[in-house]
């Protein structure tokens, strides 16, 4: 047991970091609701709240459907397309994930009809942002189909019946999982629906929190927590299919790419069209919004501090999250299965809380004299916010690669005289390098584009690029927005390229 102490200590510290702010806020909200029971009704069931909830539900469900329609052909292309199509699809999937939805919304803000029909625009915006989740899940499911099963199915029936019947049963959970993840992300989304005028939960809480009612200290935060109470349940509801899909992946379904079913050029063309419509179209809209090179440069120069802050905070956060998650997952390997499952669940659960509520909880928790140096620093709270929001995700991304790693490799290296640190760096990290690079790149892009938590917790002089973009969009300065959006997209692309370049060179 003493050998496990450092691991227990680190896990306890992490759980305290993730849970303490939420528990404090939850307790305050519960006390407030007990003292004033009408608050429940006001926060959850008033006509304004109903409109927000209906708007959020519509957004979640319709976006999941549209993302599925866009994502499934791209997923097939990823798994079975010609080599060049697979490459294009991979880039096309990575790009929207690295771009915050608020940027995808930018070209729609001034579109005709957006005022009268915000829902279709919001749905299309979020579907373009999140469809890669469906594509990647579908692609992974197809790639892991057992070869023998596919061959047998295609031998006894037509390709169409085989895919929609026998093989479909293996792929549907993945598609549903991807769609569920898309819906859950929509439940938390704040900036894009707000810009397009679609009622959403995140923005309503943000406004309520900032409304000019002079409340007792902390009351606004407690009200926000009450309004946000059902969001984790909603997100969990949508994420349940993802859990089922994960279970099907972790079964004995590892297979090699089959030689039987090939993705036709027609299908590749359809997938290419979708890719051209999404990242290509967004890029085109942004590039065509730019004014002269001098104006573009001025827009970037005016936000040079935000650029530096984005680079610093995203890099530091991504490094902490990636290596922190790796450290924890490795340390949990020797734990009993129940303990490991408990630790994993306790770490992942805070990821279900709406980011805006996480931001409120962080302010309430960290704004005290003890943490003054951190709270008063320009970027300290931004990094804390990134860590609190994305640690569950980093852990989820690295969980499967670490679980697949043979623990005997490290032990063997140590038996041969290597120190634990050397064993880790010489045997395990090289095997995990691709997963680490992918996690680092994804987390970097998400941190660089994070808005919901950053808008609440950032300190003076701690603006990151999404904040001026969000404000400029409201001010209607399309050229400046386009310049900053393209800069952010280039940074996300560069981070991904750099991460994979380093891994390639290392290998």
């Amino acid at each position, binding site marked *: 047991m003493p050998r496990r102490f450092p691991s227990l200590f*680190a896990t306890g510290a992490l759980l305290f970091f993730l849970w303490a702010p939420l528990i404090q806020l939850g307790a305050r909200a519960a006390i407030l609701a007990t003292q004033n029971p009408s608050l429940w009704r006001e926060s959850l069931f008033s006509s304004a709240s109903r409109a927000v909830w209906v708007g959020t539900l519509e957004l979640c469900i319709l976006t999941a459907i549209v993302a599925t329609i866009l994502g499934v052909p791209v997923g097939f292309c990823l798994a079975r397309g010609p080599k060049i199509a697979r490459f294009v699809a991979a880039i096309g999937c990575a790009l929207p994930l690295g771009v915050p939805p608020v940027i995808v919304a930018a070209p729609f803000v001034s579109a005709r009809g957006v005022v009268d029909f915000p829902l279709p625009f919001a749905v299309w915006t979020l579907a373009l942002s999140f469809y890669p989740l469906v594509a990647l899940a579908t692609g992974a499911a197809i790639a892991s189909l057992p070869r023998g099963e596919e061959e047998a199915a295609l031998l006894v029936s037509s390709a169409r019946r085989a895919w929609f019947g026998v093989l479909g049963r293996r792929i549907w959970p993945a598609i549903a999982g991807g769609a569920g993840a898309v819906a859950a992300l929509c439940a938390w989304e704040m900036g894009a629906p707000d810009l397009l005028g679609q009622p959403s939960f995140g923005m309503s809480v943000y406004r309520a929190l900032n409304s*000019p009612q002079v409340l007792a200290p902390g009351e606004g935060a407690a009200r926000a927590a009450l309004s946000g109470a059902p969001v984790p349940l909603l997100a969990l509801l949508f994420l349940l299919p993802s859990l089922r899909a994960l279970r099907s992946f972790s079964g004995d379904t590892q297979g090699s790419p089959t030689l039987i079913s090939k993705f036709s050029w027609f299908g590749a063309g359809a997938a290419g069209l979708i890719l051209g419509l999404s990242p290509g179209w967004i890029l085109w809209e942004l590039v065509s919004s730019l004014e002269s090179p001098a104006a573009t440069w001025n827009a970037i120069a005016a936000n040079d501090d935000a650029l530096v802050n984005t680079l610093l905070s995203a890099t530091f956060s991504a490094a902490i999250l990636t290596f922190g998650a790796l450290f924890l997952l490795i340390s949990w390997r020797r734990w009993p299965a129940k303990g490991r499952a408990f630790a994993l669940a306790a770490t992942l659960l805070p990821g279900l809380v709406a980011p805006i509520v996480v931001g409120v909880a962080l302010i309430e928790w960290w704004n005290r004299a003890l943490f003054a140096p*951190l709270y008063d620093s320009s970027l300290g709270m931004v990094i804390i916010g990134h860590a609190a929001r994305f640690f569950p995700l980093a852990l989820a991304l690295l969980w499967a690669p670490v679980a697949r790693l043979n623990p005997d490799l490290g032990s063997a290296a140590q038996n041969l005289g290597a120190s634990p640190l050397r064993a880790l760096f010489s045997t395990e990290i090289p095997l995990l390098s691709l997963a680490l690079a992918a996690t680092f790149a994804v987390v970097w892009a998400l941190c660089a584009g994070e808005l919901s938590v950053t808008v609440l917790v950032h*300190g003076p002089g701690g603006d990151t690029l999404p904040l001026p973009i969000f404000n400029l969009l409201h001010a*209607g300065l399309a050229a400046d927005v386009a310049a900053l959006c393209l800069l952010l997209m280039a940074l996300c692309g560069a981070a991904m390229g750099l991460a994979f370049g380093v891994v390639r060179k290392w290998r």
Partner: protein
Amino acid sequence: MKKSFFFSIFSLCLCASVVFFSACQTKTDNRVVLYCSVDEVYAKPLIKQLELQTGLQIDALFDTEATKTAGLANRIRAERARGRADVFWSSALLQTLLMSEEGLLEPYDSLNARDLPPQFRGKDWAGVGTRARVLVTRTPQSFDVATVAHLTGGSLKPVGISNVQFGTASDWATTLASRWGTPKTLHYFRALKTSDVRVLPGNGDVARQTAQGVLRFGVTDSDDYLALQRQGKSLVLMQTDKDNVLVPGAVSILKNAPHPENAKKLFDAIVSAQNETALTKQMPGVFSLRRLNQKSNWQSGGVDFSFLMNTPRDNYAKWPQTWRQIREPLNQIFR
């Protein structure tokens, strides 16, 4: 062995964090923290100029467009026990006056503010430029809409305003209430609501939707109107002769400011006539408080705003009380 490994990783992370956060926290003697609700796009270049003028390192925190001014004011209230801001530069006056009443501001009599008209100075605040609430439409109207008071007629819809709980819209509602009285003002906003007024997140949205033809009329800020004009959008300014409202900006030093001397230095620089002129040039649609009676002051962005010259100078001392009377009823009307 295993223990030392975990501790070495943990120590490494801890050291890196300490180094990073120490680097983040600026301990320089010339630091000052500014909470600023003036539009970031206009304020940033001015802040850079102020840094050059004063030699201060100004760390600014801006408000988002969605929660204009009220967001920062609430943040200051939430940080009352352990304030971290030194100076609050607000693009509207109401929140500053409310904070003054709540005892959140430090009295300061700046030499640079003494040339301001007396109604634009308080014991703990000073005015910095003013904007105006203006009525805009997409195409010149064949009929006459003399003032915003006429917007309640159902035949003029759709009309757009920004959220009256935030920013200059709350100052606008307060001014109308202080001139018309609370019952008439609430009746007006109820009538607007009945005629399906569209309440949008910001004044920029009101101007944009009016330019797009989605709204027939919009009540917005003079700077937002000119911003759309500069983008070549079709937007017509209604030269209303009554019920015009000016919304002055304000600067104040916060009580228990962590850097009080630097705060005074920054306050002096912001309220100076030189900075006010720079602001009016940088941000078309903002007018000098020192030259309200000069016609040249009302030429901005190539547009003649001189119809605003005779706008009544309101009694700002009454604003906090008036706002308290109308805030909750307005909240009920527009919820």
